[in-house]
């Protein structure tokens, strides 16, 4: 009896010791597996399939992953089994400008009875869990298959069915092509494509959120960081010593029974209006009981991970710091990224090298102007070492807003109390975190989470630069070069008599709002305004849920299929934040209404998604807005159209996109 008690005490002590050790020693941050092009081609088999997530503490749910391998020569539709791989953590496809990306996408996903939009009329087939891919941010052709080449470009108007999940019902309202089993893509990267960070995710309207929230995402890099960072020899020598990390921000809600809840509940950790936890969770937040007949998540966790690892250790190995290439691959979550210094009790400065896959050029820009060019995503500050605080030499910041789909590349290095880059001292640490953020009275509350434990290193050279010089391709020239590289593909698209050029000075206006006729509630509206801001009669289209068969906008390319730049005004009449993303291009934010129409497309900072802030007041229709029931904060953007084809623009909060906040756009060859 006594011996048994002693054994139990010893066992308990050992258990506590093990638990404490586990709590202190975070696992190292894993790097995504890489598949690199060779000889100008990357040819992979990409199997979307279920797989256990073994990187979460406590739970081991089944997520959905891309299992990627070089395409088997025997035509097999599965990749070789290699135990121990962190598939949920993501994969990187490493490409070069001019490469051909060949993907055979296999759908081996299970049925998805949890998706809410399977209840929408004509969309019951979404339970079959069809999938597809979109190469987010790449300036590539969205071409359809042809008799000559029956593969797809970066087209979202196709979906692949897993034949094991059943047949399409006869009432299916489809959004484009349907393929059984697998789909072949061939995506030609233009030779002039800017080097940088991009990603790939599913885009089937109605269930894109479910698939991304389950883990389906991969990153794509074009070229190398040295293509646009550290062109001078001394800087380049420093850059060579810096490890480069790729980080996929992901989140997963896990409930009792080890079930990953892919129909995300955005109140999982905090009921709307409820109190936020006092301290950020380390890699997760605990679920709450929403009460009154609503779900009880108290036995669940909402994980926020880096490459699938919640709160990993990010141990630097060199005093020169590291380059972090970060992609928000969450379906809905907005992150407010910060690097908290416990010693200085404030957020550390980091240098922003690129946004959305394109190098920033902040030289001689006022900090407020640089921040405006990011539509508020980066609270720009001068980097130390700049000649004055009035204009920027490098773009630095202490917090970076990352709405879904955003990418950022950072130089992270130890700094002193004056923000100067210094040799790290032993024990210098930081916490990589997202601060909590609320997207409006009717919006969502994204929890504050500590994402990773950072430790700096004193190893390496004593001479460190204060700023890394950044020099990417000239932004003004990118659309023309891309259009020239894609000239054959653009010419094949042909002309359309319905496609009219926007008159000089006119702008297109996109409204974010509610579609009361749509069971899914959300949609986009449209009209055209003249140079005086007056609506052009006959152009108005009320807020409507996504209609895959009817383009809202048709844009003809310029003479000789040269790029055409249009100014659009993004109008959010809802009381919650959205963001705007358009496929196949980068665009510039108009920072001053006096800027000539179109010229913001040559900004030093270009993006492929911008926040569209909520309105003040309450409008449920455009009519309400016209009656001044709310105040809208328009965002103006200049869009350089260089690629012909059919694609989409939408809110990249996938919950909103699946609910209808998306529209089809058609770009045609010059008439």
């Amino acid at each position: 009896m006594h011996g048994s008690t002693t054994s139990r005490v010893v066992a308990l002590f050992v258990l506590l010791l093990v638990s404490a050790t586990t709590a202190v020693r975070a696992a190292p941050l894993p790097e995504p597996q890489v598949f690199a092009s060779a000889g100008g081609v990357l040819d992979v088999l990409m199997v979307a399939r279920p797989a256990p997530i073994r990187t979460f503490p406590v739970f081991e749910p089944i997520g959905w992953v891309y299992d990627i391998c070089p395409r088997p020569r025997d035509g097999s539709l599965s990749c070789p089994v290699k135990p121990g791989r962190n598939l949920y953590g993501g994969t990187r496809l490493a490409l070069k400008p001019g490469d051909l990306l060949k993907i055979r996408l296999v759908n081996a996903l299970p049925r998805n009875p949890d998706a809410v939009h399977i209840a929408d009329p004509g969309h019951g087939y979404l339970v079959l869990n069809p999938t597809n891919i979109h190469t987010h941010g790449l300036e590539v052709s969205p071409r359809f298959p042809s008799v000559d080449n029956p593969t797809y470009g970066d087209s979202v108007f196709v979906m692949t069915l897993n034949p094991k999940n059943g047949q399409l019902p006869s009432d299916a309202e489809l959004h484009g092509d349907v393929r059984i089993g697998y789909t072949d893509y061939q995506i030609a990267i233009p030779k002039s494509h800017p080097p940088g960070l991009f990603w790939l995710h599913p885009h089937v309207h109605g269930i894109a959120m479910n698939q991304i929230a389950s883990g389906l995402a991969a990153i794509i890099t074009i070229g190398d960081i040295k293509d646009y960072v550290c062109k001078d020899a001394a800087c380049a020598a420093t850059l060579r010593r810096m490890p480069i990390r790729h980080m996929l921000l992901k989140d997963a809600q896990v409930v009792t029974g080890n079930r990953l809840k892919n129909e995300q509940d955005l109140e999982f950790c905090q009921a709307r209006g409820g109190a936020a936890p006092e301290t950020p969770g380390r890699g997760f937040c605990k679920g709450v009981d929403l009460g009154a007949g609503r779900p009880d998540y108290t036995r669940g966790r909402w994980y926020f991970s880096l490459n699938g690892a919640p709160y990993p250790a990010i141990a630097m190995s060199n005093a020169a710091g590291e380059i972090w290439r970060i992609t928000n691959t969450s379906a809905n979550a907005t992150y407010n990224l910060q690097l908290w210094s416990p010693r200085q009790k404030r957020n550390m400065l980091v240098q922003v090298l690129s946004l959305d896959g394109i190098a920033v050029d902040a030289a001689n820009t006022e900090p407020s102007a640089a921040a405006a060019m990011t539509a508020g995503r980066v609270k720009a500050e001068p980097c130390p070492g700049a000649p004055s605080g009035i204009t920027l030499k490098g773009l630095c910041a202490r917090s970076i807003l990352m709405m879904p789909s955003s990418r950022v590349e950072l130089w992270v290095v130890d700094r002193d109390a004056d923000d100067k880059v210094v040799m790290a001292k032993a024990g210098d640490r930081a916490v990589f975190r997202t601060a909590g953020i609320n997207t409006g009275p009717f919006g969502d509350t994204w929890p504050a989470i500590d994402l990773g434990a950072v430790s700096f290193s004193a190893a390496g050279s004593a001479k460190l630069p204060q700023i890394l010089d950044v020099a990417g391709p000239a932004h003004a020239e990118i659309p023309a070069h891309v259009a020239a590289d894609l000239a054959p593909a653009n010419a094949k698209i042909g002309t359309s008599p319905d496609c009219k050029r926007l008159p000089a000075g006119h702008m297109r206006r996109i409204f974010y709002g509610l579609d009361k006729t749509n069971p899914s509630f959300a949609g986009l509206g449209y009209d055209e305004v003249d140079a005086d801001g007056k609506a052009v009669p006959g152009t108005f289209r009320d807020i409507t849920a996504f209609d895959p068969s009817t383009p809202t906008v048709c844009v003809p390319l310029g003479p000789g299929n040269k790029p055409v730049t249009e100014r659009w005004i993004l109008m959010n009449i809802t009381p919650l934040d959205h963001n705007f993303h358009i496929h196949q291009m980068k665009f510039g934010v108009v920072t001053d209404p006096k800027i000539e129409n179109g010229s913001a497309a040559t900004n030093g900072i270009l993006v492929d998604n911008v926040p569209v802030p909520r309105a003040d007041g309450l409008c449920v229709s455009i009519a309400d807005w016209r009656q001044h029931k709310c105040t809208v904060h328009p965002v103006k953007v200049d869009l350089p159209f260089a690629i012909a084809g059919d694609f989409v623009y939408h809110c990249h909060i996938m919950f909103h996109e699946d609910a209808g906040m998306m529209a089809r756009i058609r770009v045609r060859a010059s008439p």
Partner: protein
Amino acid sequence: MRLAAFAVAGMAALAGSAGAAPAHPPDVPAIQAAYADAKADNADRHLDDLAIHSADCSPIDAGRFYCQISYLRAGDDAEGHLYFTVVTMEPGPGRWILKSGLCRGDGAAH
């Protein structure tokens, strides 16, 4: 290329329409003929200018087949645009019947 494919598909459709009772999986002519029948029954729900280009069918049950098909449409502004979809085919008296797929609004007009 597009017109040539159209012509081939059209001739094949004529041949298919004269076929005997379906004993094998439906082929391009059979599906084209079944589409023509469906269109004759309800023109509003079907396109005028659709030519089946390829078909790959797998059995479901009781003689029914689920087919991956590709097709072309006249008047497309994209040269040689090849569409892909799936159809369900059911044996009828002496010919195949198109049971689902290729209707307006289900993606055939995208």
